[in-house]
């Protein structure tokens, strides 16, 4: 047998066939080529972790043995080779869940000005500095607004023109008059933090048509 050709053929098959089956067949073919064909089992080594991985929080979670047997006849003598491959798995602690939208919102370092030119507005709280670098406040809450009803909080500013956000095409726009104790006259009144506004980090707007 031309073992070089056999190796080439087997390698080519690997792109089309199952990995482990290919491994077993190749082993059998190779041994057959040496004329020493017998019933053999070749077992891969086990693997273990040390203290460094333990210190990093890893634990062994699984081991599996994959057994593949290949039989072959050469020069009137038949035999088989069984290949045992091993998979050893370790894992550290589970992933931290993705933050909620509210967590992203309150932890955001983004300014409202970075966010307010997109739609729909899911929440707007803030002072008159809608286009300023105003940062979120820890513990602030937000409210979701329906896409079909863009609702903006537009605080009053003493002695200055109100700042208004308009939309094109026009959606429902509510004006809120600021009253005492950090509330505006939405119905029901919406509290907001004086001098603060915030926008969520990582927020993107994607239309369903994928643009």
């Amino acid at each position, binding site marked *: 047998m031309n073992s070089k050709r056999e*190796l080439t053929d*087997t*390698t080519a*098959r*690997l792109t089309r066939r199952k*990995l*482990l089956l290919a491994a077993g067949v190749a*082993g059998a073919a190779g*041994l057959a*080529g*040496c004329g020493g064909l017998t019933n053999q089992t*070749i077992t*891969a*080594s*086990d693997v*273990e*972790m040390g*203290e460094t991985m333990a210190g*990093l929080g*890893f634990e062994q979670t699984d081991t*599996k043995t*994959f057994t593949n047997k290949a039989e072959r006849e050469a020069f009137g003598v038949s035999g088989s080779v069984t*290949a*045992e491959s*091993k*998979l*050893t*798995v*370790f894992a550290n602690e589970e*992933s*931290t869940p*993705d933050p909620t939208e509210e967590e992203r919102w309150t932890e955001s370092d*983004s300014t409202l000005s970075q966010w*307010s*030119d997109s*739609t729909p507005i*899911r929440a707007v709280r803030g002072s008159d500095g*809608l286009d300023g670098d105003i940062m979120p406040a820890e513990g602030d809450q937000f409210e979701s607004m329906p896409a079909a009803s863009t609702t903006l909080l537009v605080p009053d500013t003493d002695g200055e*023109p*109100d*700042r*208004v956000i*308009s939309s*094109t095409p*026009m*959606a*429902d*726009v509510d*004006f*809120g*008059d600021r009253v005492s104790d950090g509330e505006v006259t939405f119905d029901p009144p919406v509290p907001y933090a004086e001098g603060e506004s915030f*926008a969520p*980090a*990582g927020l*993107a707007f*994607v*239309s*369903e048509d*994928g*643009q």
Partner: protein
Amino acid sequence: MSHGVGPLFLTAPPSSLILELLETTRQESGNSPNPVLGVSDDTGGGPTIGSTTINTPSITNLPSVTQIYWNPLDTGWAENTQTTVAVFTTPSASVGGRSLNPLSEVDENEFVTADGAEYLEESGIREAAGLGPNLSWVVAPAEVASRSVTFLGNQTTMRSYVGYVTTGDSEIPRTLLINLATTETGDDIAFGVTVQHRAMYSLSEDGASAPTDGILSAMSVPDLVGAEASNGLNVSAGDDITLVVDAGVTTSADLAAQALGDLSLA
């Protein structure tokens, strides 16, 4: 946990609402329509809030919009995403000093990037790493880094790959980061693989629809790699944005190198 990237605005279609900041005085009751807002007389009545009345037009063909939060592969991603270390050992089946195991002919790149991720599947690594069934690439994997490591006592090259996959478990693609090193030890060929994966993005509300493949199909991993995650950009399909941060890959590779260096044959 760092939430990384700031707002990413994917450009909305022409029919979508575009908000503008304007300066105006409050329109008192009876001052309708509001000239600044461009509301015409025939748009119908709107809500009355305090002393302010705003007329509103009927909204037709309002675009259905989904809001998503990218989960860029940054340092926070690497530190807060579970790492699975899988070691696959298989007999080298060598005869006369010649390796006859076809695995010796499989390079790291093929092991990760083969169509359908068949090697990850058949070696059991996909399942061991908690990736769902029917894994397929939606953004083709690519090598993003490499370094020399010790694996089972041998010096070898560890390569880092990033790609985006979907599985049968969710319609949301997952960012998949794989560090892979191979070596021959004794009579075995060994593949040391670390796997981390996390949803590519999360949706802002339950039941929201994921975006279609239009954006993802225009992405290429090399174009997504950068020093800092994109922040505050208007993004359209095909734009280059940074969702794979160099420091995040390095953080993952650091941990992988420590883990592989700590492994030994039993």
